[in-house]
């Protein structure tokens, strides 16, 4: 447990290929023998499984890698539990980042405390300025003509971003409150009791989106402009089951903000 890596990059890639079911039989056999005889290799193997699961949850695996992982590891109850745990952990980490982007990993020294004091002072100043801006903004909002949400209609894609059709683009003019997205429900997911919708930003940040409207064919969500900046986004949808659990519908609704 000394923290010294016992495998190199090639061996790590070999473990990955094993998990995707892409390793030739002879290599597979020697990897499995190592699994049965080297406890330190088991630990490295588990670390790679964690990383691949992270990438799976963040939708960073290629189509064939994803499929391979789903057809083997993720067929098991253990694999599914791991995905559920990982997705909660990553979401929690992203949510916490909104509060404190960089957590200091050591005890604060004198300069850190001085810096922290000034950060608090500047936050107070910033809060006062923000309050003034909100009052001014309130006046502006009551006087300016109301602007509508930018409309967007999307279909689900099971391909990776780079492989499927070009994502739709939306331009956010100044003053537009956000984007109203109509998500076409795929055939196999229709008729659910309810749905759960998430926005995934390019940096992996996840936000739950409130469903505005829904019918048999579509689910409509409004994404406030505050959650959007220029970049790539994906929306993920899950169906809520009658027992309170939810099941992710495979694929993503991709779009770009310009």
């Amino acid at each position, binding site marked *: 447990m000394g923290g010294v890596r016992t495998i190199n990059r090639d061996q790590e890639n070999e473990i990955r290929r094993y998990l995707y079911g892409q390793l030739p039989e002879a290599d597979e056999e020697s990897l499995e*023998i190592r699994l049965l*005889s080297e406890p330190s290799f088991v630990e490295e193997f588990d670390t790679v499984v*964690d990383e691949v699961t992270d990438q799976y949850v963040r939708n960073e695996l290629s189509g064939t890698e994803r499929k391979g992982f789903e057809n083997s590891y993720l067929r098991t109850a253990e694999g599914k539990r791991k995905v559920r745990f990982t997705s909660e952990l990553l979401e929690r980490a992203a949510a916490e980042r909104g509060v404190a982007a960089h957590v200091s*990993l*050591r005890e604060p020294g004198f300069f850190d405390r001085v810096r922290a004091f000034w950060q608090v002072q500047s936050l107070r100043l910033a809060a006062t300025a923000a309050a003034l801006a909100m009052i001014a903004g309130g006046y502006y909002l009551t006087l300016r003509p109301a602007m509508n949400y930018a409309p967007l209609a999307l279909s689900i894609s099971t391909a990776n971003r780079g492989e499927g059709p070009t994502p739709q683009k939306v331009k956010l003019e100044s003053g537009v409150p956000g984007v109203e997205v109509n998500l076409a429900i795929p055939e196999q997911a229709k008729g659910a009791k309810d749905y759960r919708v998430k926005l995934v930003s390019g940096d992996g940040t996840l936000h739950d989106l409130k469903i505005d409207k829904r019918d048999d064919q579509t689910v409509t969500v409004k994404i406030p402009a505050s959650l959007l900046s220029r970049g790539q986004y994906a929306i993920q949808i899950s169906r809520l089951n009658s027992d*309170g659990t939810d099941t992710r519908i495979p694929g993503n609704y991709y779009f770009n903000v310009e």
Partner: protein
Amino acid sequence: MTTPKDPFDELLEWLDPDREKAGQRYEAIRAGLIRMYVAKGVTDAEYYADETIDRVVKRLPEIKAHYVGDPARYFHGVARNIVMEAGRRKEVPTDELPQGITPPEPSRSDTSECLTKCLQQLPRDKQEFILDYHLYHGHEKVVHHRQMATELSISEGALRTRAHHLRVNLEKCVLRCVDHHGKNKNAVQSHSN
């Protein structure tokens, strides 16, 4: 008159004449078998790992007389056969069985609540470490982990291992907690039925 040896003791003896080393070898083989079965998509990997060991134990007198080589290879051969048998039976993953046969999947709110509880059980610095470690992805993640390793004055490999150990324990705690929630719910349900 000599009493017959316990089959498990015989297995340990075959693995290594030193009892302690034999125990370690046994644990390593079992842990490896579980990984292998999960990676092959075989549901209930622990059951099949034990089944593999049982089959080896049953054939032990014969193996001890004729087999030459690393015992891990023999276990591997038996495990491969079991994977093939499971494939022939077209094993149905547990969660595709009709409801009532398997316990219901935990809800997201249970997992989330349990994660909160388990994080709170960790010392503050470890809570921050595990969340901080999982903040970014892609290139940003590499840079961020490098920064973290520098701040902690440890190598990136050690950082990775530290994160892995914390994550394993956190995951175990969440699983235990979710399981406990499930049992409580079932108890409440059966009480109200």
